[in-house]
């Protein structure tokens, strides 16, 4: 394939993705395309499958993929273990980041970065160089340096955990970041800091997918495209105004329409 073809293709291309947890099908033929440099928002009611989708892309094995494809930068995501997806440039910001006492925050970040640098054929950073680098990145999320010497997310408040997710993203500089409800459980100051971090990393060389229930975050990080997800599929796509409409009208009508099968065709036409 020529490099020109490469440029014309979306960074992320998901087609007809189906996945189930146990006997219950959660993703029912989801399609989505994200171009390089774009910020997309996926909104939708609870239970629509947003978090499952984010997890499936990152390689969490709680759901079993039964059909469809997900291509990142020309590579088949679904064929790779989670660590290979990360090395391919995917980052998942967790809705509930895990606390791991006994694994130092700073060490973890450096190990993760070096695993990825190594995979890209770049030189690994030593402790001193890394410290300089991470200090700079920490300013983005206004994080207290003492957090670095603690266990990974150990004893962090909800807001601190989310800031740590954004810090990890800032350190790892992924090609595609999927942020799963990065705004949930944040007070207004924490939301501003997290949004500021996300916004600062925006650029022509990477893309972001914000999975969110609320419009609030999108006031700070204005998306290029807004998708609405219901019953395991993207059912509507539009510009920023779609988010505002959802905010006004709520999700109930989406659910009702989806139940009736009203989106059966339009969903496939997502940009």
């Amino acid at each position, binding site marked *: 394939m020529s490099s020109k073809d490469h440029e014309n293709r979306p960074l992320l291309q998901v087609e007809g993705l189906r996945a189930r947890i146990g006997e219950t099908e959660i993703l029912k033929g989801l399609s989505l395309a994200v171009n390089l440099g774009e910020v997309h928002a996926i909104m939708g009611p609870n239970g629509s499958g947003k978090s499952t989708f984010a997890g499936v892309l*990152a*390689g*969490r*094995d709680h759901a079993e993929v039964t059909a469809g494809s997900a291509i990142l930068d020309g590579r088949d995501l679904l064929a790779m*273990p*989670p*660590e290979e*997806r*990360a*090395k391919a440039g995917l*980052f*998942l910001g*967790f809705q509930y*980041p*895990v606390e*791991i*006492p*006994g*694994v*130092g925050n700073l*060490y*973890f970040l450096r*190990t*993760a970065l070096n*695993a*990825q640098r190594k*995979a890209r054929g770049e030189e690994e950073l030593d402790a001193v160089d890394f410290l300089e680098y991470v200090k700079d990145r920490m300013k983005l999320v206004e994080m207290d340096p003492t957090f670095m010497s603690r*266990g990974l997310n150990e004893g962090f408040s909800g807001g601190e955990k989310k800031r740590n997710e954004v810090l*990890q993203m800032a350190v*790892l500089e992924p090609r595609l970041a999927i942020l799963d409800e990065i705004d949930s459980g944040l007070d207004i100051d924490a939301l501003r800091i997290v949004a500021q971090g996300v916004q600062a990393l925006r650029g022509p060389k990477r893309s972001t997918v914000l999975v969110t229930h609320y419009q609030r975050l999108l006031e700070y990080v204005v998306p290029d495209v807004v998708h609405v997800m219901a019953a395991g599929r993207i059912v509507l796509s539009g510009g920023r105004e779609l988010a505002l409409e959802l905010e006004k009208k709520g999700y109930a009508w989406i659910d009702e329409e989806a139940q009736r099968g009203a989106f059966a065709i339009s969903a496939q036409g997502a940009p």
Partner: protein
Amino acid sequence: MIPFAEALLQEAARSAPLPAFAADLRRAGRATFEALGLPTAHLEDWRFTSLAPLASQPFSPGDPEAPLAAADLERQAGTGAGPRLVFVNGRLREDLSRPSRAFYAGSLARALRECPALAEPHLGRVAPLDGHPFAALNAALWADGALVHLPAATALVEPVELVFATVGTGAAAASAPRVLVVAEPGSEGTVVERYLALGPGPALTSAVTEVALGEGARVDHYQVQDQPANAFHFAFVGVEAEREAGFHTHSTALGAAISRSDVKVRLAGEGAEASVEGLYMTDGRRLVDNHSVVEHAKPHGTSREVFKGILDGESRAVFGGRVRVLEGALKTDAHQMNSNLLLSRDATVDAMPQLEIYADDVKCGHGGTVGQLDPDALFYLRSRGLPLAHARSLLIYAFAREMVDRVRLPALRERVGRLVAGRLPEGARVLEAA
């Protein structure tokens, strides 16, 4: 009688004469062992611990003069800084040892010749045979070991390091070292015991440690066992703590085909404290067994027990923890915890916490967990680009780390951390995380 035991007992009968009280102990040990033989699954404390692989081994007494290269010793036990006594097949080797200038830490056999009065009140009393086959075997076989005497009202900063190497020169070698720590009233000291097995054949180590703590004495005690997978290790620790005395013991059991540890602590005086801790790792078809009995005999005693284990393969762990609160031991505060991390479906844990309480107004509890690696944590680490083996190693070490951190001596803590990490696939990288 098991063939190997017969050979060992015959050899012991030829050893140097002992003071009467020590000779009595040896006789009692022999009689008890001859009556008991190797324990079978019919004994409650040995229900889950089959010794079948042991019985058929052709053990003979290890040669105390067996060569032990300084380089081998260093590789296995580091160089250490303070006083160090090295025992080869149960006997002190002066050529490999560094004595202490500040107090007596030396050969038990020599102490029995030169100052028997120091040992007489305690030897064989603090760790009674009590129907324990390996306490009896050791009593029947021991020829030497260490006496550590902590003088009254003196805090000794330097830890005493005792290195016990069972060294086979071809055949299967056995050794039965014995340690007696006499902590006079108001004394403080630290004793580190390391158990090594070297040489091509299987090694059998049957060790007994007795610690007598006088009023207000404090002893910090460690055992580190990192032997090859064909070794058999039995360690029996008996402790008696007088009024306001404090005893802390911490064991790290990483190797051996069968590794069995018994700790018996008697809080004999009011307000005495004991803390009994252990970390064990096992894999393949190995077995590790930790039994403990903490007896509260007087009021206001405190005991804490924490054991953590990591099991892989088809290995087994046994934990038997008994807390006994005698009549009148009011305001006893005892707690016991045993947590296990199973890395394989075929590994098993048998945990038997037992509380026997004969006093009112006490606070006693126990808890335990058996779990697997948290799949969410594993996914979290992998999602950042850490390979599976590295992520697993990090989480396993994170589980063990609490026990590593409980080692109070910084140099030993680092050493134990390295030994634990050394048994993980990505050990070297994992240590940086701590």
